């Protein structure tokens, strides 16, 4: 059954608090806020990374490693997290792991050739890891990703959904993932990450995004509808009906999300009643 309990903290608000504290170098406050975010959405790679980066800001490299490993696991393409993790390993004296991380960055640079868009970022990351391995003082290890304003997030969201409507799912996913940096784990972004991945046939990934959206906002109508559709698509009619029941409970004055899921279930060939 879909969860109906709201999280103890609003992760979107906590994320913004964390960003503001991080930018003000109030790392203790930032750590607290990012911990609240990942307690609800552990798969939010930017929050895991920023938690690790905040701990690094407090020179607590030992505790930084766990969230940084989680960030890399959630998003293996995040260069900032790979850099920070390698530096933390080096600062903890784990030269082997630091070297392995650096070599992975070198391999990535080689694979994408010198002209790839991330080449300069990878070079800077490699230099930071080498400096740490050589025992140098930690360099600035904040995000290279721009933390854009909230207004820009809305524009990004509209652009991403427009791309989805055009069937251009991969660029939509890239836009939405980028927006997660500035918006935090906003349930609308998470829902459409699930939707775009579902359309690409990435059902497992889609399910994890929908679950993340519902962890943040258990009553999110779009996430309930689309997760119900995913259940149906995967042959779990009972699961789809549970999500429809939840929507009908929420939509006492009607809503298009319940109507759409009801139609999908009916079109799947069986009565909903």
């Amino acid at each position, binding site marked *: 059954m879909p969860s109906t309990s709201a999280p103890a903290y609003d992760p979107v608000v906590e994320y913004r608090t964390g960003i503001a504290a991080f930018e003000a170098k109030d790392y203790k406050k930032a750590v607290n806020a990012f911990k609240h975010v990942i307690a609800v959405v552990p798969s939010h790679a930017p929050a895991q990374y920023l938690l690790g980066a905040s701990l690094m800001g407090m020179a607590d490299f030992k505790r930084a490693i766990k969230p940084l490993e989680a960030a890399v696991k959630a998003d293996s393409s995040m260069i900032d997290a790979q850099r920070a993790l390698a530096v933390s390993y080096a600062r903890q004296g784990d030269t082997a792991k630091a070297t392995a991380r650096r070599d992975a960055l070198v391999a990535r640079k080689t694979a994408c050739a010198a002209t790839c868009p991330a080449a300069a970022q990878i070079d800077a990351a490699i230099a930071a890891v080498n400096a740490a391995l050589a025992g140098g003082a930690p360099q600035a290890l904040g995000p290279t990703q721009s933390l854009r304003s909230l207004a820009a997030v809305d524009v990004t969201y509209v652009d991403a959904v427009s791309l989805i409507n055009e069937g251009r799912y991969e660029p939509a996913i890239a836009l939405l993932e980028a927006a997660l940096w500035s918006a935090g784990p*906003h*349930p609308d972004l998470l829902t459409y990450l699930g939707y775009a991945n579902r359309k690409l046939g990435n059902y497992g990934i889609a399910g994890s995004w929908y679950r993340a959206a519902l962890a943040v*906002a258990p009553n999110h109508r*779009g996430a309930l509808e689309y997760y119900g559709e995913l259940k149906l698509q995967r042959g779990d009619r009972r699961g789809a009906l549970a999500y429809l029941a939840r929507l009908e409970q929420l939509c006492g004055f*009607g809503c298009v999300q319940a*109507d759409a899921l009801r139609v999908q279930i009916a079109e799947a060939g069986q009565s909903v009643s």
Partner: protein
Amino acid sequence: MGLSAALSAAPPPRTAPALLALTWTAPGRERAVLLEQPATCLNPAVAPAQVRLGQALFNAPDLFGGQAARAALNCASCHSNGRRNPAFFLSGISGEPGSADVSSSFFSLARTNRQFDPVAIPDLALPGKIDRAPASGALERFIRGLIVEEFTGREPGAGQIAALASYVRAIGPCPARATEPRALSSDLQLLNASVAGAVTLLDQQDPAGAAVLIKAARFRLGLIDERMAGPKLAKLRRALLTASLGLAQLPLQRTRLAAWLATFDRDVAPSLVRSERQSLYDPRQLDRWLIDLQGGKK
């Protein structure tokens, strides 16, 4: 506010409850939008029953499809009371308040130009680029294109298009006043028009159109529910919810719909009217609510 908030129709946890109309309202214009609307004087020479049906459809979110329907947008979102909503604003869709990019892929692929080129929302009381003469049929074709192509709605029946065109033809400015209150009576009148319109469309053998208006009636009950905020009005909100669920379960039959409306007018509407001054239709109550919404800052 932003479109993402509109689409979820479910705010993130622990934020103050928002009234739906605020989703597409420019910051700073909230009070004006919630308390007032442009004054509209309908031309009595245009068949009143058709105009009333058209007005109900004009306010029906299910006339549209796709993202517009998900945001509960309807014609009146941009054309407040059939006129122009100067405060309409959606990030990524609007430029200045009162504008919209209707050729965005966000709404439809049929008319997309992949450019951000919002245009000023026109006032339907003023002559526009579309010939409104009934004989030309141009207005009917334009409205059909808006619904089906611009906002990916289902193909409307001929009776729906005719009624919408009649309403648009009847819209006129009022000589003596620029605005009029957006009061409970406005919503009750639209509720009534929606249910009565559903009966008319059933008589015209258009059950799909009738279903659109039943959903519009339930949507209207939801808008009234939003305004009946606070613990003192909980009983009224329960009555509104019961009325909505009852309407949803009714078979699409003339007599049943008429009976529902009569019961609502007898058992619920008078209590709503008596409580209007305690609700967010009242300027003083709304002012307090807006201060709370903005975090207690005046």
